[in-house]
């Protein structure tokens, strides 16, 4: 995609290349600095997001009837413990083989039958619901494996930017114990990222504030 307009600075990486030593210089590097544009600032989705962002097929990260499909459901709660009914929850995740239906996956895009990997759902009914598959494990860049996880964005009136979290599955005990991101968190905070098994899938509540405030990530 970036190749549609030639960029003299866009030298393709050698996929087989070994780890190279750091230059000692953090940040963007002088080669690209002069071309840097300021990013567009975010703004809240506001209360009328349903006009622009409703998709009839939004909930289906995995198509209906896909073997192994389950529902990930949950609520979004505010600092008073009230259920937020005007939020949108978006999910993005790997397929059960640990691949992504995305050309940006350097291992090549996958096409797992029935799998879009992405879903969006409103909380109008009091909870969001996304139909998906159990994500596979992924390399963590340090020789280890990440535990199965779903990246989540929450948008709502009263949030000027999205908030981002990750859903892990509580019954993936072994994988979770090895996950670098989970391990980097204080033990009492990890639980806020665990979806618990439910009748037709998993449950995951997002606590925007409070004692049980979900761990949110800066991406």
């Amino acid at each position, binding site marked *: 995609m970036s190749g549609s307009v030639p960029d003299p600075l866009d030298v393709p*990486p050698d*996929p087989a290349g070994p780890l190279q030593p750091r230059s000692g210089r953090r940040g963007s590097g002088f080669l690209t600095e002069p071309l840097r544009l300021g*990013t567009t*600032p975010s703004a809240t989705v506001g209360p*009328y997001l349903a*006009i622009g962002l409703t998709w009839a097929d939004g909930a289906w990260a995995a198509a209906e009837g896909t073997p192994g499909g389950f529902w990930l459901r949950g609520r979004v709660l505010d600092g008073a413990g009230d259920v937020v009914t005007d939020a949108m929850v978006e999910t993005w995740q790997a397929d*059960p*083989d640990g691949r992504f239906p995305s050309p940006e996956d*350097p291992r090549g*895009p996958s096409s797992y039958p029935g799998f879009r990997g992405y879903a969006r759902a409103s909380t109008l009914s009091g909870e969001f619901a996304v139909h998906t598959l159990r994500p596979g494990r992924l390399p963590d860049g340090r020789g280890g494996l990440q535990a199965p996880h779903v990246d989540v964005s929450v948008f709502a009136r009263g949030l000027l930017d999205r908030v981002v979290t990750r859903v892990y599955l509580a019954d993936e005990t072994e994988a979770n114990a090895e996950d670098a991101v989970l391990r980097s968190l204080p033990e009492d905070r990890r639980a806020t990222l665990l979806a618990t098994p439910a009748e037709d899938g998993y449950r995951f509540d997002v606590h925007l504030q409070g004692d049980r405030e979900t761990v949110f990530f800066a991406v």
Partner: protein
Amino acid sequence: MTGTTSERGLRLPRYLREDAAQRTPVGFPGYRSTALRAPLRTPVDLPHRLTEVTGPVLGEDRVRPGDADLTLRNGGEAIGQRILVHGRVLDSDGRPVPGALVEVWQANAAGRYRHVVDNWPAPLDPHFDGLGRVVTDSLGRYEFLTVKPGAYPWSNHHNAWRPAHIHFSLFGRAFTQRLVTQMYFPDDPLFGQDPIYNSIPAAARHRAVSRFSLERTQDDWALAFEWDVVLRGSEQTPFETDDDGDVA
């Protein structure tokens, strides 16, 4: 069964972390609804791994014929000042983002949204639903035809009015690039009293404001406003590899 991948040595782009002084905070005291919603703890830095540097492919299949013309709905023409909104979607390296889905929604010319929650006494327009969708072309360009949205009151504070704006939702190539924002119009006298506009750090506010475009304004037809959207770019220097997450 849980699959695994064990490939080593893959080089991933590292998306640039934005300068906090240039980006909109999640919460802002003047915007009351943020008080119970914006998280209070400092977010944890998430390394950019495969999940973060990939993203869904959403293109022409999400767009129906007519989605780029908001002025013609239900068999008639919307009332209001007809405007062409156009621009490019770029990343912060200046590279166009082709094939990017852009979803927009807005109030009608009277400042009313077609939504059950919006019931202030301004008229609905039977020929305006306020929804548009376009996909950027090979040069990252987009355009859609609409009517200029009106300002509208909201109950944030006494006599609070939102400056005219169009809501934008964009996907780039990666989860890190996801952006939902609002486009404003130049020199709006309502800017000064609007906490949503003013929550943007002063240095970055101008990036949320479109430019009147006489070049694209069409005689006897429509005014034009130009607005480029810049998504986060990634580190592309081939010699700098990050042991914190560039390699997966």
